């Protein structure tokens, strides 16, 4: 199956849309300049800002002044609009289209503006809920209509590339017909100061691969590409702008903010993309490098390119010299740049290059009239989240037959699952003797971390990282798998404790002397990267940050990766923490603090794989994600899932719901329950484990324990009028926390 890119849209410092981007590239005209829109003291750093104020974008998009927006969401809407238009997708078709967006900053622009207001008054409370990455993606989505599913990738500077990779998997696994994937990210004081604390910003225009390079310039923007199978595109009469023939995602597993000297992660990502496309290094006519301009990145990336291409490295350039480093959006912005280069037969130059060094020597002048058959587009993120996309020209249709990715219907087993939560850590004591709470907010019980983490390693870990590492190690030990092939993590907020510390210092003390350690931990992918670094795991690595389905998206990705042949075992985690101050903020929004519910935090780690082993708890038979579905749609999906697995509704021993005891939650889970699930016993777990963005990971844990122990504890039953059968064979997990994102996961006994 060949993947077609049938539409694209972009906004960056080069302007709005593909035409303006193309003209700037052809004129070798950089968009990097002195700061204009961001209110920062650091005017010494050149930046690549989108040449438009928020008001101007709102006007173009027809958004009224009283609608809460963030700069990231506005840029995302501008790019998505162009992508949908160019692919000929009308709003009526959106229920067949999945949206995957990458961001790390999310709504931080508004959070840093109003953080002290959040704490001290109620004037800007609407921006508390626009802070997280998922909220930002939903704002982008909701501007256009109802998408089939929506999720958010967050692997720092490779987020958009990984969103495109996840999108490709969605098509290959037939989970979606059309996927719009990319990323959006605005410049904030938060990450400008974070990068400054790490001393990786240049006060001059960046000079990637140059001997005098001294750091990067931040940029901002958004881009999306429309992906569909060749068959689907032909059937609806869509034209291909390019083909996505290969992709690779690997983890450098070296350091949270530095690349390894030999570029292991980058080498693996590029090699995998070539392997998947069935191409030789000599088939690549251009590499759009990650090329940030930091001494470390460019020498590491050069080493990786030489490992793949030997002496014959194809023409290389970093177009970050035009746009600045657009961080989470760079993967999709640069993919669009590659497509424009292919369609218009030119090589975009690496501006500002003068003195060669031991790095790869980039092309410093534009080259026109160059036919490009295949190009690689590199994106590397903090934590060593390295990805490479292989994009092919539509004028060259060879190699169709050799493209390798496939999707099997392999069985997937839960080999082990562990938790640190409001119940006794690493224990199933809750099944017989649960700790019952009356408080509205409970923090997790902490195990002794010493056996898991050496003191010198612990020095740079907040509570969440410690919890995540300890619970992952327990899960791996329980499964007797030392090294997973794949690591995927879900986290709604990441290490919010560190984010708050950095934000607090930024807002109260100003833009000087901020701690790099706090900034490093504020990126959501720190958790997944920590696992990889700790285990030395170079395999597929991704992080999802989308509200209540952060874990569900991670699990769904892991299932696709396992079935798509990326490996046999995966470590999948759901990790969130709830600080007292963030709890107070979420209470203000009505998301938490409702009567009857308990807010908490939990870390869950599951080892899943394609083989049943000693101690395997259950099978994950199927999983579906939806955005704002109708009851009818959910019912149909459930019946399809069951019949595919030779089951029917009466086979289900219960539905484990996210009902948390509040009226708010009752509305989503209880009111329509009978219509959806009839008389199947309704089960709940949040009165024991609490409410948090990734509490759905606890549902997997609870369901797996019930199937393994062949027993459903009384404490899980909501309504005792229909008691659960004694030896459950199948359980459905239903997550619909805010009524928008719904997931159904079918677990069966082994």
């Amino acid at each position, binding site marked *: 199956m060949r993947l077609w890119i049938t539409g694209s849209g972009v906004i960056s410092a080069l302007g709005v849309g593909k035409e303006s981007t193309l003209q700037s590239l052809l004129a070798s005209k950089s968009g990097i300049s002195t700061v204009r829109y961001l209110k920062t003291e650091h005017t010494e750093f050149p930046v690549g800002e989108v040449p438009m104020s928020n008001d101007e974008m709102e006007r173009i998009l027809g958004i009224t002044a009283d609608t809460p927006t963030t700069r990231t969401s506005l840029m995302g809407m501008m790019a998505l609009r162009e992508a949908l238009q160019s692919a000929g997708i009308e709003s009526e078709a959106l229920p067949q289209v999945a949206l995957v967006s990458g961001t790390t900053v999310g709504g931080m622009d508004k959070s840093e503006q109003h953080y002290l207001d959040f704490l001290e008054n109620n004037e800007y409370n609407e921006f508390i809920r626009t802070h997280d990455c998922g909220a930002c993606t939903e704002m982008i989505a909701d501007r256009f209509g109802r998408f089939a599913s929506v999720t958010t990738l967050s692997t720092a500077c490779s987020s958009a590339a990984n969103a495109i990779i996840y999108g490709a998997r969605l098509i290959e696994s037939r989970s979606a017909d059309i996927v719009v994937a990319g990323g959006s990210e605005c410049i904030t004081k938060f990450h400008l100061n974070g990068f400054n*604390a*790490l*001393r990786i910003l240049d006060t001059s225009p960046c000079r990637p691969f140059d001997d005098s390079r001294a750091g990067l310039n931040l940029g901002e923007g958004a881009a999306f590409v429309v992906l569909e199978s060749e068959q689907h595109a032909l059937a609806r009469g869509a034209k291909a702008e390019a083909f996505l023939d290969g992709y690779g995602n690997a983890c450098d597993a070296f350091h*949270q*903010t*530095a690349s390894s000297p030999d570029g292991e992660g980058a080498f693996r990502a590029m090699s995998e993309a070539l392997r998947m496309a069935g191409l030789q290094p000599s088939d690549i006519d251009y590499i759009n490098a990650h090329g940030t301009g930091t001494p470390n990145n460019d020498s590491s990336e050069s080493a990786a390119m030489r490992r793949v291409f030997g002496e014959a490295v194809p023409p290389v350039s970093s177009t970050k010299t035009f746009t600045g480093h657009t961080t989470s959006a760079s993967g999709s912005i640069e993919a669009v740049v590659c497509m424009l280069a292919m369609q218009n037969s030119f090589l975009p130059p690496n501006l500002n290059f003068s003195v060669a060094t031991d790095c790869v020597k980039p092309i410093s002048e534009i080259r026109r009239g160059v036919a490009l058959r295949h190009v690689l587009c590199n994106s590397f993120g903090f934590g060593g989240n390295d990805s490479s996309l292989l994009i092919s020209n539509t004028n060259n249709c060879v190699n169709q037959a050799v493209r390798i990715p496939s999707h099997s219907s392999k069985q997937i087993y839960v080999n082990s699952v562990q938790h640190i939560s409001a119940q006794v850590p690493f224990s199933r004591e809750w099944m017989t003797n649960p700790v019952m709470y009356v408080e509205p907010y409970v923090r997790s019980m902490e195990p002794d971390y010493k056996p898991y983490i050496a*003191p*010198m390693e*612990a*020095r*740079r870990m907040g509570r969440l990282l410690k919890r995540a590492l300890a619970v992952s190690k327990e899960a791996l030990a329980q499964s007797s798998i030392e090294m997973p092939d794949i690591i995927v993590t879900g986290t709604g907020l990441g290490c919010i404790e560190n984010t708050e510390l950095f934000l607090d210092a930024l807002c109260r003390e100003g833009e000087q*002397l*901020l*701690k*790099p*350690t706090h900034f*490093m931990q504020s990126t959501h992918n720190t958790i997944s990267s920590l696992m990889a670094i700790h285990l030395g795991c170079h395999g597929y690595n991704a992080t999802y940050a989308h509200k209540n389905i952060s874990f569900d998206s991670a699990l769904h990705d892991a299932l696709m990766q396992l079935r798509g042949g990326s490996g046999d075992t995966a470590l999948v985690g759901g990790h969130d923490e709830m600080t007292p101050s963030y709890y107070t903020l979420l209470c203000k929004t009505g998301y938490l603090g409702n009567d009857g519910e308990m807010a908490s935090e939990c870390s869950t780690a599951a080892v899943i794989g394609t083989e049943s082993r000693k101690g395997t708890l259950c099978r994950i038979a199927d999983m579906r994600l939806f955005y704002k579905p109708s009851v009818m749609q959910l019912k149909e999906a459930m019946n399809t899932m069951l019949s595919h697995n030779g089951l029917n509704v009466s086979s289900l021993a219960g539905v484990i719901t996210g009902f948390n005891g509040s009226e708010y939650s009752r509305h989503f889970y209880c009111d329509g329950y009978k219509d959806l699930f009839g008389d199947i016993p309704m089960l709940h777990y949040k009165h024991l484990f609490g409410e948090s963005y990734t509490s759905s990971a606890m549902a997997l844990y609870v369901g797996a324990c019930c199937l393994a122990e062949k027993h459903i504890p009384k404490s899980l039953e909501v309504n005792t009028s229909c008691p659960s059968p004694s030896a459950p064979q199948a359980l459905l997990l239903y997550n619909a926390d805010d009524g928008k994102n719904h997931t159904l996961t079918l677990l069966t006994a082994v």
Partner: protein
Amino acid sequence: MEELILKLKNEIIEVLNLEDIKPEDIDENAPLFGEGLALDSIDALELIVLMEKNYGIKIKDPNEGKDIFKSVAVMAEYISKNRTK
């Protein structure tokens, strides 16, 4: 100088979050990087913040830090000569 060395050790333990390490565990003449405490580049950046915040010493180039952060004793000497607060 001894007083400054002890103060500095406590500050290093605090900003680098060195749980379980006491001031007496740090040999003021031992290297901070490579061996000894085996700190890394991020720790160096934290020490740069410490120098400016607590002693008013600005270190522009992280490479300059390499010589200053050789050991606690070297740091203390540099501070006593260059401090502005």
